[in-house]
Protein backbone atom coordinates (compact mmCIF):
# COMPACT_ATOMS: atom_id res chain seq x y z
CA UNK A 1 0.00 0.00 0.00
CA UNK A 2 2.66 2.47 1.08
CA UNK A 3 4.72 1.47 -1.92
CA UNK A 4 1.79 2.06 -4.27
CA UNK A 5 1.08 5.36 -2.59
CA UNK A 6 4.61 6.51 -3.30
CA UNK A 7 4.28 5.47 -6.90
CA UNK A 8 1.06 7.43 -7.25
CA UNK A 9 2.57 10.42 -5.54
CA UNK A 10 5.26 10.56 -8.18
CA UNK A 11 3.33 9.65 -11.31
CA UNK A 12 0.01 11.19 -10.24
CA UNK A 13 0.75 14.85 -10.95
CA UNK A 14 2.01 14.32 -14.51
CA UNK A 15 -0.90 11.99 -15.27
CA UNK A 16 -3.32 14.52 -13.85
CA UNK A 17 -1.62 17.26 -15.82
CA UNK A 18 -2.04 15.31 -19.05
CA UNK A 19 -5.68 14.56 -18.30
CA UNK A 20 -6.52 18.17 -17.51
CA UNK A 21 -4.50 19.83 -20.24
CA UNK A 22 -4.51 17.23 -22.99
CA UNK A 23 -7.30 14.64 -22.71
CA UNK A 24 -10.07 17.01 -21.66
CA UNK A 25 -9.18 19.73 -24.23
CA UNK A 26 -9.04 17.07 -26.95
CA UNK A 27 -12.52 15.90 -25.99
CA UNK A 28 -13.75 19.50 -26.00
CA UNK A 29 -12.29 19.94 -29.48
CA UNK A 30 -13.93 16.76 -30.77
CA UNK A 31 -17.26 18.03 -29.46
CA UNK A 32 -16.61 21.52 -30.89
CA UNK A 33 -16.10 20.07 -34.36
CA UNK A 34 -19.71 18.82 -34.32
CA UNK A 35 -21.20 22.09 -33.08
CA UNK A 36 -22.40 25.16 -34.95
CA UNK A 37 -20.34 28.36 -34.90
CA UNK A 38 -21.68 31.17 -32.74
CA UNK A 39 -22.95 34.34 -34.35
CA UNK A 40 -20.08 36.47 -33.01
CA UNK A 41 -17.49 33.73 -33.11
CA UNK A 42 -17.09 31.02 -30.51
CA UNK A 43 -19.66 28.25 -30.46
CA UNK A 44 -23.43 28.03 -30.57
CA UNK A 45 -25.06 26.33 -27.56
CA UNK A 46 -25.13 22.51 -27.55
CA UNK A 47 -28.68 22.42 -26.32
CA UNK A 48 -31.50 24.35 -27.95
CA UNK A 49 -34.67 24.87 -25.98
CA UNK A 50 -37.97 25.54 -27.66
CA UNK A 51 -41.64 24.65 -27.19
CA UNK A 52 -41.00 20.97 -27.81
CA UNK A 53 -38.25 20.87 -25.17
CA UNK A 54 -34.50 20.76 -25.34
CA UNK A 55 -32.76 19.08 -28.23
CA UNK A 56 -29.17 18.66 -29.32
CA UNK A 57 -27.77 21.29 -31.66
CA UNK A 58 -25.07 19.29 -33.42
CA UNK A 59 -24.06 18.97 -37.05
CA UNK A 60 -21.72 17.21 -39.44
CA UNK A 61 -21.36 20.29 -41.65
CA UNK A 62 -17.73 20.96 -40.76
CA UNK A 63 -16.75 17.49 -41.94
CA UNK A 64 -18.98 17.77 -44.98
CA UNK A 65 -17.18 20.99 -45.83
CA UNK A 66 -13.84 19.23 -45.50
CA UNK A 67 -14.77 16.49 -47.95
CA UNK A 68 -16.76 18.74 -50.29
CA UNK A 69 -13.68 20.33 -51.81
CA UNK A 70 -10.43 18.68 -52.75
CA UNK A 71 -8.57 21.88 -51.85
CA UNK A 72 -8.38 20.87 -48.17
CA UNK A 73 -7.03 17.41 -48.94
CA UNK A 74 -4.55 19.01 -51.31
CA UNK A 75 -3.32 21.24 -48.49
CA UNK A 76 -2.92 18.13 -46.30
CA UNK A 77 -0.90 16.43 -49.02
CA UNK A 78 1.25 19.50 -49.50
CA UNK A 79 1.89 19.74 -45.75
CA UNK A 80 2.74 16.05 -45.71
CA UNK A 81 5.28 16.55 -48.50
CA UNK A 82 6.90 19.45 -46.63
CA UNK A 83 7.07 17.29 -43.49
CA UNK A 84 8.56 14.32 -45.37
CA UNK A 85 11.19 16.44 -47.11
CA UNK A 86 12.08 18.11 -43.82
CA UNK A 87 12.36 14.77 -42.02
CA UNK A 88 14.46 13.27 -44.80
CA UNK A 89 17.01 16.09 -44.85
CA UNK A 90 17.09 16.26 -41.06
CA UNK A 91 17.95 12.57 -40.96
CA UNK A 92 20.52 12.93 -43.72
CA UNK A 93 22.30 15.72 -41.88
CA UNK A 94 21.75 14.61 -38.30
CA UNK A 95 23.03 11.07 -38.66
CA UNK A 96 26.67 11.89 -39.54
CA UNK A 97 26.61 14.66 -36.97
CA UNK A 98 25.31 12.41 -34.20
CA UNK A 99 27.81 9.73 -35.18
CA UNK A 100 30.63 12.26 -35.08
CA UNK A 101 29.63 13.40 -31.60
CA UNK A 102 29.17 9.84 -30.34
CA UNK A 103 32.59 8.77 -31.63
CA UNK A 104 34.51 11.83 -30.47
CA UNK A 105 36.60 11.78 -27.31
CA UNK A 106 34.32 11.67 -24.29
CA UNK A 107 35.66 14.90 -22.83
CA UNK A 108 34.34 16.85 -25.86
CA UNK A 109 31.00 15.07 -26.17
CA UNK A 110 29.07 17.14 -23.62
CA UNK A 111 30.37 20.33 -25.18
CA UNK A 112 29.33 19.20 -28.67
CA UNK A 113 25.85 18.24 -27.47
CA UNK A 114 25.61 21.60 -25.78
CA UNK A 115 26.45 23.27 -29.09
CA UNK A 116 23.62 21.37 -30.77
CA UNK A 117 21.07 22.68 -28.26
CA UNK A 118 22.59 26.14 -28.08
CA UNK A 119 20.14 27.63 -30.63
CA UNK A 120 17.28 26.92 -28.20
CA UNK A 121 18.66 29.61 -25.96
CA UNK A 122 17.40 32.26 -28.32
CA UNK A 123 13.74 32.66 -29.09
CA UNK A 124 12.21 30.58 -31.88
CA UNK A 125 10.64 33.60 -33.60
CA UNK A 126 13.84 35.61 -33.45
CA UNK A 127 15.67 32.79 -35.18
CA UNK A 128 13.06 32.72 -37.95
CA UNK A 129 13.30 36.49 -38.34
CA UNK A 130 17.05 36.04 -38.64
CA UNK A 131 16.41 33.72 -41.59
CA UNK A 132 14.34 36.48 -43.12
CA UNK A 133 17.41 38.67 -43.13
CA UNK A 134 19.69 35.86 -44.35
CA UNK A 135 17.40 35.03 -47.26
CA UNK A 136 16.53 38.63 -48.14
CA UNK A 137 17.56 39.85 -51.59
CA UNK A 138 20.23 42.15 -50.15
CA UNK A 139 21.92 39.63 -47.88
CA UNK A 140 25.47 38.40 -48.44
CA UNK A 141 24.14 34.85 -48.60
CA UNK A 142 21.74 35.68 -51.45
CA UNK A 143 24.43 37.68 -53.24
CA UNK A 144 26.95 34.84 -52.99
CA UNK A 145 24.47 32.22 -54.17
CA UNK A 146 23.28 34.34 -57.09
CA UNK A 147 26.88 35.18 -57.99
CA UNK A 148 27.66 31.47 -58.07
CA UNK A 149 24.56 30.68 -60.15
CA UNK A 150 25.46 33.56 -62.46
CA UNK A 151 28.63 31.70 -63.49
CA UNK A 152 26.40 29.05 -65.04
CA UNK A 153 24.19 31.67 -66.63
CA UNK A 154 21.25 30.88 -64.31
CA UNK A 155 19.28 34.02 -63.52
CA UNK A 156 19.19 35.40 -60.00
CA UNK A 157 16.82 33.40 -57.78
CA UNK A 158 14.61 34.77 -55.07
CA UNK A 159 14.94 32.95 -51.75
CA UNK A 160 12.72 34.78 -49.30
CA UNK A 161 8.95 34.18 -49.48
CA UNK A 162 9.26 30.84 -51.26
CA UNK A 163 8.43 27.23 -50.33
CA UNK A 164 12.19 26.64 -50.42
CA UNK A 165 12.64 29.15 -47.60
CA UNK A 166 9.95 27.38 -45.57
CA UNK A 167 11.51 23.93 -45.91
CA UNK A 168 15.02 25.25 -45.30
CA UNK A 169 13.92 26.92 -42.09
CA UNK A 170 11.90 23.89 -40.99
CA UNK A 171 15.02 21.74 -41.37
CA UNK A 172 17.00 24.28 -39.38
CA UNK A 173 14.43 24.41 -36.59
CA UNK A 174 13.92 20.64 -36.35
CA UNK A 175 17.50 19.43 -36.79
CA UNK A 176 18.36 19.27 -33.05
CA UNK A 177 15.29 17.07 -32.46
CA UNK A 178 16.80 14.53 -34.83
CA UNK A 179 20.36 14.81 -33.54
CA UNK A 180 19.59 14.28 -29.88
CA UNK A 181 17.74 10.92 -29.98
CA UNK A 182 20.24 9.64 -32.55
CA UNK A 183 23.14 10.67 -30.35
CA UNK A 184 21.51 9.14 -27.27
CA UNK A 185 21.29 5.86 -29.18
CA UNK A 186 24.67 5.88 -30.92
CA UNK A 187 26.52 6.88 -27.80
CA UNK A 188 25.49 3.61 -26.11
CA UNK A 189 26.89 1.33 -28.83
CA UNK A 190 29.67 -0.93 -27.58
CA UNK A 191 32.81 -0.22 -29.65
CA UNK A 192 33.78 -3.86 -29.14
CA UNK A 193 31.05 -4.81 -31.62
CA UNK A 194 32.82 -2.92 -34.39
CA UNK A 195 36.14 -4.48 -33.44
CA UNK A 196 34.55 -7.89 -33.60
CA UNK A 197 33.08 -7.14 -37.01
CA UNK A 198 36.48 -5.99 -38.21
CA UNK A 199 38.11 -9.18 -36.89
CA UNK A 200 35.56 -11.14 -38.88
CA UNK A 201 36.64 -9.31 -42.01
CA UNK A 202 33.98 -6.62 -42.43
CA UNK A 203 35.16 -3.45 -44.12
CA UNK A 204 34.12 0.03 -42.96
CA UNK A 205 31.02 0.16 -45.10
CA UNK A 206 29.83 -3.26 -43.99
CA UNK A 207 30.51 -2.43 -40.36
CA UNK A 208 28.24 0.58 -40.68
CA UNK A 209 25.40 -1.07 -42.57
CA UNK A 210 25.40 -4.37 -40.71
CA UNK A 211 26.26 -3.26 -37.18
CA UNK A 212 25.84 0.43 -36.44
CA UNK A 213 22.83 1.19 -38.61
CA UNK A 214 20.54 -1.66 -37.48
CA UNK A 215 21.38 -0.93 -33.85
CA UNK A 216 20.54 2.73 -34.31
CA UNK A 217 17.07 2.11 -35.76
CA UNK A 218 15.21 2.91 -32.49
CA UNK A 219 17.01 6.27 -32.42
CA UNK A 220 16.04 6.90 -36.04
CA UNK A 221 12.38 6.12 -35.34
CA UNK A 222 12.37 8.41 -32.31
CA UNK A 223 14.00 11.20 -34.31
CA UNK A 224 11.56 10.83 -37.19
CA UNK A 225 8.59 11.00 -34.82
CA UNK A 226 10.02 14.07 -33.09
CA UNK A 227 10.64 15.89 -36.37
CA UNK A 228 7.77 14.74 -38.56
CA UNK A 229 4.79 15.23 -36.26
CA UNK A 230 5.52 18.79 -35.05
CA UNK A 231 6.18 19.94 -38.63
CA UNK A 232 2.64 18.90 -39.60
CA UNK A 233 1.14 21.50 -37.30
CA UNK A 234 3.60 24.34 -37.60
CA UNK A 235 2.32 27.73 -38.77
CA UNK A 236 4.82 30.40 -37.71
CA UNK A 237 7.48 29.46 -40.27
CA UNK A 238 5.21 29.54 -43.35
CA UNK A 239 3.54 32.69 -41.99
CA UNK A 240 6.80 34.57 -41.84
CA UNK A 241 8.85 33.07 -44.69
CA UNK A 242 6.26 31.44 -46.93
CA UNK A 243 5.11 34.23 -49.20
CA UNK A 244 2.04 33.64 -51.31
CA UNK A 245 2.66 29.93 -51.96
CA UNK A 246 4.06 28.55 -48.72
CA UNK A 247 0.93 28.08 -46.59
CA UNK A 248 0.52 24.81 -44.64
CA UNK A 249 -2.39 23.19 -42.82
CA UNK A 250 -1.42 24.87 -39.53
CA UNK A 251 -1.96 28.29 -41.10
CA UNK A 252 -5.43 27.30 -42.20
CA UNK A 253 -6.35 26.06 -38.71
CA UNK A 254 -5.08 29.28 -37.16
CA UNK A 255 -7.04 31.29 -39.70
CA UNK A 256 -10.26 29.41 -38.92
CA UNK A 257 -9.96 30.13 -35.21
CA UNK A 258 -8.86 33.75 -35.41
CA UNK A 259 -9.87 35.45 -38.61
CA UNK A 260 -12.84 33.44 -39.78
CA UNK A 261 -14.06 32.85 -36.20
CA UNK A 262 -15.23 29.42 -37.34
CA UNK A 263 -14.22 27.27 -34.39
CA UNK A 264 -16.11 24.13 -35.48
CA UNK A 265 -14.34 23.97 -38.84
CA UNK A 266 -11.00 24.77 -37.22
CA UNK A 267 -11.60 21.95 -34.74
CA UNK A 268 -12.58 19.56 -37.52
CA UNK A 269 -9.36 20.39 -39.40
CA UNK A 270 -7.31 19.84 -36.23
CA UNK A 271 -8.94 16.48 -35.67
CA UNK A 272 -8.39 15.40 -39.26
CA UNK A 273 -4.75 16.39 -38.81
CA UNK A 274 -4.46 14.42 -35.57
CA UNK A 275 -6.06 11.37 -37.17
CA UNK A 276 -3.80 11.71 -40.20
CA UNK A 277 -0.69 11.96 -38.03
CA UNK A 278 -1.82 8.98 -35.95
CA UNK A 279 -2.39 6.83 -39.04
CA UNK A 280 1.05 7.71 -40.41
CA UNK A 281 2.90 7.19 -37.12
CA UNK A 282 0.86 4.07 -36.31
CA UNK A 283 1.51 2.68 -39.77
CA UNK A 284 5.21 3.37 -39.46
CA UNK A 285 5.33 1.75 -36.02
CA UNK A 286 3.51 -1.31 -37.32
CA UNK A 287 5.90 -1.53 -40.25
CA UNK A 288 8.89 -1.16 -37.94
CA UNK A 289 7.48 -3.77 -35.55
CA UNK A 290 6.94 -6.27 -38.33
CA UNK A 291 10.47 -5.70 -39.59
CA UNK A 292 11.91 -6.29 -36.18
CA UNK A 293 9.93 -9.51 -35.83
CA UNK A 294 11.13 -10.57 -39.26
CA UNK A 295 14.73 -10.03 -38.23
CA UNK A 296 14.46 -12.41 -35.29
Amino acid at each position, binding site marked *: MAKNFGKWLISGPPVLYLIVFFVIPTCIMVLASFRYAGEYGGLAPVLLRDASGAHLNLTLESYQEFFSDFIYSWLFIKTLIYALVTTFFCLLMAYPLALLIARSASKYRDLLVLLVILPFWSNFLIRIYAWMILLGPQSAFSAALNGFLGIFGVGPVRLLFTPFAVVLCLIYVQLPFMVLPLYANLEKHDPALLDAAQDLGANGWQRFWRVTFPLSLPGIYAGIALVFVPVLGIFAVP*DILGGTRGIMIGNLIKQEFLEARDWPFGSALSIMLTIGAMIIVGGAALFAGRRRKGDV
Partner: protein
Amino acid sequence: MIRLLFLLCLVAMPAFAADELHLYNWNNYIAPETIDRFEAYCRCKVIQDYYSDNEELLAKLAAGAKGYDILVPTGNALASLVRQGALLPLDKKLIPNLKNVNPAYLNTPFDPGNRYSVPYAYTVTLIGYNVEKMRQLGLPTDTWAVIFEPKYLARVKGRVTVLDSQRELMAAALKYLGYSANDTVEAHWYRAQQLILRAKPYWAAFNSSSYIKELTVGNIWLVHGYSNDMFQAQNDAKAAKRKFTIGFSIPKEGAVLALDNMVIHKYAPRPDLAHKFINFMLDGRNSSELTNMIGSGNPNLAALKYINPEIASNPAIFPRKEELGKLEMLQDLNMEQRRVLNRLWIKIKIE
Protein backbone atom coordinates in the same frame (compact mmCIF):
# COMPACT_ATOMS: atom_id res chain seq x y z
CA MET B 1 6.97 39.58 14.63
CA ILE B 2 4.52 42.39 15.25
CA ARG B 3 7.00 44.84 13.82
CA LEU B 4 7.32 42.67 10.75
CA LEU B 5 3.56 42.63 10.29
CA PHE B 6 3.45 46.35 10.73
CA LEU B 7 6.11 46.77 8.09
CA LEU B 8 4.22 44.49 5.74
CA CYS B 9 1.10 46.58 6.24
CA LEU B 10 3.03 49.70 5.38
CA VAL B 11 4.32 48.13 2.21
CA ALA B 12 0.96 46.74 1.23
CA MET B 13 -1.10 49.79 2.09
CA PRO B 14 -0.40 51.94 -0.95
CA ALA B 15 -1.45 49.04 -3.14
CA PHE B 16 -4.90 49.05 -1.56
CA ALA B 17 -5.33 52.73 -0.99
CA ALA B 18 -4.10 54.10 -4.30
CA ASP B 19 -6.57 54.90 -7.07
CA GLU B 20 -5.91 52.82 -10.12
CA LEU B 21 -7.20 53.03 -13.65
CA HIS B 22 -6.91 49.83 -15.67
CA LEU B 23 -6.43 50.56 -19.34
CA TYR B 24 -6.64 47.71 -21.86
CA ASN B 25 -5.22 49.22 -25.02
CA TRP B 26 -3.42 48.42 -28.28
CA ASN B 27 0.34 48.07 -28.12
CA ASN B 28 2.14 51.40 -28.32
CA TYR B 29 -1.12 53.36 -28.51
CA ILE B 30 -0.70 56.07 -25.91
CA ALA B 31 2.21 58.46 -25.37
CA PRO B 32 4.10 57.88 -22.10
CA GLU B 33 4.06 61.61 -21.30
CA THR B 34 0.27 61.64 -21.58
CA ILE B 35 0.05 58.85 -19.00
CA ASP B 36 2.43 60.70 -16.68
CA ARG B 37 0.33 63.84 -16.92
CA PHE B 38 -2.92 61.99 -16.31
CA GLU B 39 -1.45 60.28 -13.25
CA ALA B 40 -0.42 63.64 -11.85
CA TYR B 41 -3.81 65.16 -12.70
CA CYS B 42 -6.00 62.50 -11.11
CA ARG B 43 -3.47 61.42 -8.48
CA CYS B 44 -3.92 57.85 -9.52
CA LYS B 45 -1.97 55.13 -11.19
CA VAL B 46 -2.61 53.94 -14.73
CA ILE B 47 -2.10 50.22 -15.18
CA GLN B 48 -1.87 49.17 -18.79
CA ASP B 49 -2.45 45.86 -20.45
CA TYR B 50 -2.08 45.37 -24.19
CA TYR B 51 -3.63 43.50 -27.10
CA SER B 52 -2.52 43.29 -30.69
CA ASP B 53 -5.83 42.73 -32.44
CA ASN B 54 -9.54 43.07 -31.81
CA GLU B 55 -10.05 39.32 -31.79
CA GLU B 56 -7.70 39.08 -28.85
CA LEU B 57 -9.65 41.74 -26.96
CA LEU B 58 -13.01 40.11 -27.72
CA ALA B 59 -11.76 36.65 -26.86
CA LYS B 60 -10.34 37.79 -23.54
CA LEU B 61 -13.56 39.55 -22.55
CA ALA B 62 -15.64 36.61 -23.80
CA ALA B 63 -13.57 34.37 -21.54
CA GLY B 64 -14.74 36.50 -18.61
CA ALA B 65 -11.91 38.97 -18.04
CA LYS B 66 -12.88 41.62 -15.51
CA GLY B 67 -11.11 44.53 -13.89
CA TYR B 68 -10.54 46.67 -16.96
CA ASP B 69 -11.91 50.21 -16.90
CA ILE B 70 -11.14 51.46 -20.39
CA LEU B 71 -10.99 49.45 -23.64
CA VAL B 72 -10.12 50.79 -27.08
CA PRO B 73 -11.91 48.60 -29.67
CA THR B 74 -12.13 49.29 -33.41
CA GLY B 75 -15.53 49.96 -35.00
CA ASN B 76 -16.73 46.42 -35.73
CA ALA B 77 -15.46 45.08 -32.41
CA LEU B 78 -17.23 47.99 -30.72
CA ALA B 79 -20.48 46.99 -32.42
CA SER B 80 -20.06 43.46 -31.18
CA LEU B 81 -19.41 44.65 -27.61
CA VAL B 82 -22.47 46.92 -27.75
CA ARG B 83 -24.67 44.05 -28.96
CA GLN B 84 -23.36 41.79 -26.23
CA GLY B 85 -24.21 44.46 -23.64
CA ALA B 86 -20.63 44.47 -22.42
CA LEU B 87 -20.31 48.25 -22.06
CA LEU B 88 -21.36 50.93 -19.62
CA PRO B 89 -23.33 53.87 -21.10
CA LEU B 90 -21.32 57.08 -20.92
CA ASP B 91 -22.36 59.96 -18.70
CA LYS B 92 -21.84 62.80 -21.18
CA LYS B 93 -22.08 65.42 -18.40
CA LEU B 94 -18.70 64.15 -17.23
CA ILE B 95 -17.17 64.51 -20.72
CA PRO B 96 -17.43 68.20 -21.67
CA ASN B 97 -14.48 67.81 -24.05
CA LEU B 98 -16.68 65.73 -26.33
CA LYS B 99 -17.29 69.03 -28.15
CA ASN B 100 -13.73 68.80 -29.51
CA VAL B 101 -14.47 65.73 -31.61
CA ASN B 102 -14.94 66.19 -35.34
CA PRO B 103 -18.63 65.37 -36.00
CA ALA B 104 -17.56 63.36 -39.06
CA TYR B 105 -16.34 60.66 -36.65
CA LEU B 106 -19.36 60.68 -34.36
CA ASN B 107 -22.59 58.73 -34.64
CA THR B 108 -21.11 55.77 -36.54
CA PRO B 109 -23.28 52.75 -37.32
CA PHE B 110 -21.34 50.83 -34.67
CA ASP B 111 -22.68 52.96 -31.84
CA PRO B 112 -25.43 55.32 -33.03
CA GLY B 113 -25.56 58.46 -30.91
CA ASN B 114 -22.29 57.51 -29.19
CA ARG B 115 -24.06 56.09 -26.18
CA TYR B 116 -21.03 54.00 -25.23
CA SER B 117 -18.05 55.22 -27.17
CA VAL B 118 -15.89 58.21 -27.94
CA PRO B 119 -13.49 58.31 -30.92
CA TYR B 120 -9.84 57.96 -29.95
CA ALA B 121 -7.72 57.69 -33.11
CA TYR B 122 -7.87 56.09 -36.54
CA THR B 123 -5.76 54.51 -39.24
CA VAL B 124 -6.37 54.25 -42.97
CA THR B 125 -5.53 51.13 -44.97
CA LEU B 126 -3.67 52.42 -47.99
CA ILE B 127 -0.63 51.90 -50.19
CA GLY B 128 2.93 52.68 -49.12
CA TYR B 129 5.84 52.70 -51.51
CA ASN B 130 9.46 53.39 -52.21
CA VAL B 131 9.14 56.84 -53.80
CA GLU B 132 12.28 56.63 -55.96
CA LYS B 133 11.49 53.14 -57.31
CA MET B 134 7.93 54.08 -58.19
CA ARG B 135 9.16 57.15 -60.07
CA GLN B 136 11.91 55.19 -61.81
CA LEU B 137 9.45 52.50 -62.94
CA GLY B 138 6.80 55.03 -63.90
CA LEU B 139 4.15 53.54 -61.62
CA PRO B 140 1.12 55.47 -60.34
CA THR B 141 0.73 55.80 -56.56
CA ASP B 142 -2.82 57.11 -56.37
CA THR B 143 -4.77 53.99 -57.34
CA TRP B 144 -5.37 50.39 -56.27
CA ALA B 145 -4.63 49.45 -59.89
CA VAL B 146 -0.94 49.38 -59.03
CA ILE B 147 -1.62 46.55 -56.56
CA PHE B 148 -4.06 44.63 -58.77
CA GLU B 149 -3.29 45.22 -62.46
CA PRO B 150 -0.74 42.87 -64.05
CA LYS B 151 0.38 45.58 -66.51
CA TYR B 152 1.77 47.56 -63.56
CA LEU B 153 2.66 44.60 -61.36
CA ALA B 154 4.92 43.10 -64.04
CA ARG B 155 7.38 45.91 -63.28
CA VAL B 156 7.50 45.21 -59.53
CA LYS B 157 7.10 41.44 -59.54
CA GLY B 158 8.16 39.93 -56.21
CA ARG B 159 8.51 43.37 -54.61
CA VAL B 160 4.92 43.76 -53.43
CA THR B 161 3.20 42.61 -50.24
CA VAL B 162 -0.46 42.82 -49.31
CA LEU B 163 -2.11 42.44 -45.91
CA ASP B 164 -2.78 38.90 -44.74
CA SER B 165 -6.35 39.84 -43.89
CA GLN B 166 -9.51 38.64 -45.61
CA ARG B 167 -11.52 41.74 -44.89
CA GLU B 168 -8.82 44.29 -45.73
CA LEU B 169 -7.64 42.75 -48.98
CA MET B 170 -11.18 42.04 -50.19
CA ALA B 171 -12.13 45.62 -49.27
CA ALA B 172 -9.27 46.98 -51.39
CA ALA B 173 -10.31 44.77 -54.33
CA LEU B 174 -13.98 45.73 -53.93
CA LYS B 175 -13.08 49.40 -53.80
CA TYR B 176 -10.99 49.05 -56.95
CA LEU B 177 -13.91 47.37 -58.70
CA GLY B 178 -16.13 50.28 -57.69
CA TYR B 179 -18.11 48.51 -54.96
CA SER B 180 -18.46 49.38 -51.30
CA ALA B 181 -15.93 47.87 -48.91
CA ASN B 182 -18.95 46.51 -47.03
CA ASP B 183 -20.55 44.99 -50.12
CA THR B 184 -21.86 41.50 -49.35
CA VAL B 185 -23.16 40.48 -52.79
CA GLU B 186 -21.55 37.11 -53.50
CA ALA B 187 -21.10 37.84 -57.21
CA HIS B 188 -19.11 40.96 -56.32
CA TRP B 189 -17.01 39.01 -53.86
CA TYR B 190 -16.33 36.46 -56.56
CA ARG B 191 -15.14 39.18 -58.94
CA ALA B 192 -12.87 40.54 -56.23
CA GLN B 193 -11.50 37.04 -55.66
CA GLN B 194 -10.72 36.66 -59.36
CA LEU B 195 -8.98 40.03 -59.35
CA ILE B 196 -6.84 38.96 -56.39
CA LEU B 197 -6.01 35.58 -57.95
CA ARG B 198 -4.89 37.30 -61.16
CA ALA B 199 -2.56 39.60 -59.21
CA LYS B 200 -1.27 37.01 -56.72
CA PRO B 201 1.57 35.59 -58.86
CA TYR B 202 3.18 39.03 -58.85
CA TRP B 203 3.02 39.48 -55.07
CA ALA B 204 5.83 38.37 -52.81
CA ALA B 205 3.73 37.64 -49.75
CA PHE B 206 0.61 38.12 -47.72
CA ASN B 207 2.17 39.97 -44.85
CA SER B 208 0.73 41.90 -41.94
CA SER B 209 3.68 41.89 -39.58
CA SER B 210 7.05 42.51 -41.17
CA TYR B 211 6.25 44.69 -44.16
CA ILE B 212 7.38 47.83 -42.30
CA LYS B 213 10.89 46.44 -42.04
CA GLU B 214 10.96 45.07 -45.58
CA LEU B 215 9.88 48.44 -46.93
CA THR B 216 12.41 50.26 -44.77
CA VAL B 217 15.38 48.18 -45.89
CA GLY B 218 14.39 48.29 -49.56
CA ASN B 219 13.52 44.63 -50.15
CA ILE B 220 9.91 45.47 -50.88
CA TRP B 221 8.86 48.50 -52.91
CA LEU B 222 5.10 48.55 -52.72
CA VAL B 223 2.84 47.47 -49.85
CA HIS B 224 -0.79 47.40 -48.86
CA GLY B 225 -0.92 48.33 -45.19
CA TYR B 226 -1.88 50.72 -42.41
CA SER B 227 -1.12 54.44 -42.37
CA ASN B 228 0.61 54.49 -38.97
CA ASP B 229 2.86 51.61 -40.07
CA MET B 230 3.82 53.57 -43.18
CA PHE B 231 4.56 56.57 -40.97
CA GLN B 232 6.91 54.39 -38.94
CA ALA B 233 8.58 52.99 -42.08
CA GLN B 234 9.03 56.52 -43.41
CA ASN B 235 10.70 57.68 -40.19
CA ASP B 236 12.81 54.54 -39.88
CA ALA B 237 14.12 54.95 -43.43
CA LYS B 238 14.92 58.58 -42.69
CA ALA B 239 16.66 57.70 -39.43
CA ALA B 240 18.71 55.00 -41.14
CA LYS B 241 19.74 57.53 -43.81
CA ARG B 242 18.57 55.33 -46.68
CA LYS B 243 19.06 56.52 -50.23
CA PHE B 244 15.31 56.34 -50.78
CA THR B 245 12.21 57.71 -49.09
CA ILE B 246 8.95 56.03 -48.17
CA GLY B 247 5.69 57.61 -49.24
CA PHE B 248 2.07 56.62 -48.71
CA SER B 249 -1.22 57.73 -50.14
CA ILE B 250 -4.92 56.94 -50.13
CA PRO B 251 -5.96 55.48 -53.51
CA LYS B 252 -8.47 57.62 -55.38
CA GLU B 253 -11.00 54.76 -55.41
CA GLY B 254 -11.30 55.04 -51.62
CA ALA B 255 -10.12 52.87 -48.75
CA VAL B 256 -10.88 51.47 -45.32
CA LEU B 257 -10.77 53.66 -42.25
CA ALA B 258 -10.48 51.97 -38.86
CA LEU B 259 -11.69 54.14 -36.00
CA ASP B 260 -10.65 53.12 -32.49
CA ASN B 261 -12.91 54.18 -29.66
CA MET B 262 -12.63 54.59 -25.91
CA VAL B 263 -15.32 52.67 -24.06
CA ILE B 264 -15.96 51.70 -20.43
CA HIS B 265 -16.35 48.01 -19.65
CA LYS B 266 -19.51 46.89 -17.88
CA TYR B 267 -17.44 45.52 -14.98
CA ALA B 268 -15.19 48.58 -14.71
CA PRO B 269 -14.07 48.90 -11.08
CA ARG B 270 -13.71 52.69 -11.41
CA PRO B 271 -16.20 54.27 -13.84
CA ASP B 272 -15.48 57.66 -12.23
CA LEU B 273 -11.80 57.52 -13.16
CA ALA B 274 -12.69 56.12 -16.57
CA HIS B 275 -14.87 59.15 -17.35
CA LYS B 276 -12.10 61.42 -16.12
CA PHE B 277 -9.65 59.62 -18.41
CA ILE B 278 -11.91 59.89 -21.45
CA ASN B 279 -12.42 63.61 -20.89
CA PHE B 280 -8.68 64.05 -20.34
CA MET B 281 -7.83 62.26 -23.58
CA LEU B 282 -10.24 64.46 -25.53
CA ASP B 283 -8.26 67.53 -24.54
CA GLY B 284 -6.49 68.84 -27.65
CA ARG B 285 -2.95 68.70 -26.36
CA ASN B 286 -3.28 65.29 -24.71
CA SER B 287 -4.88 63.88 -27.83
CA SER B 288 -2.19 65.30 -30.12
CA GLU B 289 0.66 63.47 -28.41
CA LEU B 290 -0.29 60.05 -29.77
CA THR B 291 -0.49 61.43 -33.31
CA ASN B 292 2.91 63.07 -32.97
CA MET B 293 4.34 59.80 -31.69
CA ILE B 294 2.95 57.22 -34.14
CA GLY B 295 1.30 59.22 -36.94
CA SER B 296 -2.20 57.98 -36.22
CA GLY B 297 -5.16 59.91 -37.58
CA ASN B 298 -6.79 62.18 -35.05
CA PRO B 299 -10.54 62.84 -34.90
CA ASN B 300 -10.05 65.65 -32.40
CA LEU B 301 -10.38 69.16 -33.87
CA ALA B 302 -8.79 70.82 -30.85
CA ALA B 303 -5.68 68.65 -31.28
CA LEU B 304 -4.79 69.98 -34.71
CA LYS B 305 -2.89 73.03 -33.51
CA TYR B 306 -0.58 70.85 -31.38
CA ILE B 307 0.19 68.38 -34.15
CA ASN B 308 3.52 68.46 -35.94
CA PRO B 309 2.75 70.42 -39.19
CA GLU B 310 4.41 67.75 -41.31
CA ILE B 311 1.89 65.21 -40.04
CA ALA B 312 -1.07 67.56 -40.03
CA SER B 313 -0.50 68.43 -43.69
CA ASN B 314 -0.20 64.81 -44.83
CA PRO B 315 -3.46 63.98 -46.63
CA ALA B 316 -2.90 60.26 -46.05
CA ILE B 317 -3.11 60.85 -42.28
CA PHE B 318 -5.59 63.72 -42.30
CA PRO B 319 -7.74 63.06 -45.38
CA ARG B 320 -9.26 66.06 -47.09
CA LYS B 321 -13.02 66.42 -47.10
CA GLU B 322 -13.51 64.91 -50.56
CA GLU B 323 -11.32 61.91 -49.66
CA LEU B 324 -13.00 61.43 -46.32
CA GLY B 325 -16.23 60.72 -48.17
CA LYS B 326 -14.59 57.77 -49.95
CA LEU B 327 -13.32 56.15 -46.76
CA GLU B 328 -15.42 53.41 -45.24
CA MET B 329 -15.41 51.68 -41.89
CA LEU B 330 -15.65 47.89 -42.07
CA GLN B 331 -18.83 46.45 -40.62
CA ASP B 332 -19.01 43.05 -39.00
CA LEU B 333 -20.22 40.17 -41.15
CA ASN B 334 -22.62 37.56 -39.87
CA MET B 335 -21.58 33.92 -39.54
CA GLU B 336 -22.99 32.86 -42.91
CA GLN B 337 -21.22 35.71 -44.72
CA ARG B 338 -18.00 35.00 -42.87
CA ARG B 339 -18.13 31.40 -44.06
CA VAL B 340 -18.65 32.39 -47.69
CA LEU B 341 -15.86 34.94 -47.53
CA ASN B 342 -13.59 32.49 -45.75
CA ARG B 343 -14.10 29.89 -48.46
CA LEU B 344 -13.21 32.43 -51.15
CA TRP B 345 -10.16 33.38 -49.10
CA ILE B 346 -8.96 29.79 -48.67
CA LYS B 347 -9.00 29.46 -52.47
CA ILE B 348 -6.93 32.64 -52.67
CA LYS B 349 -4.40 31.37 -50.16
CA ILE B 350 -4.02 27.81 -51.46
CA GLU B 351 -4.48 28.00 -55.21
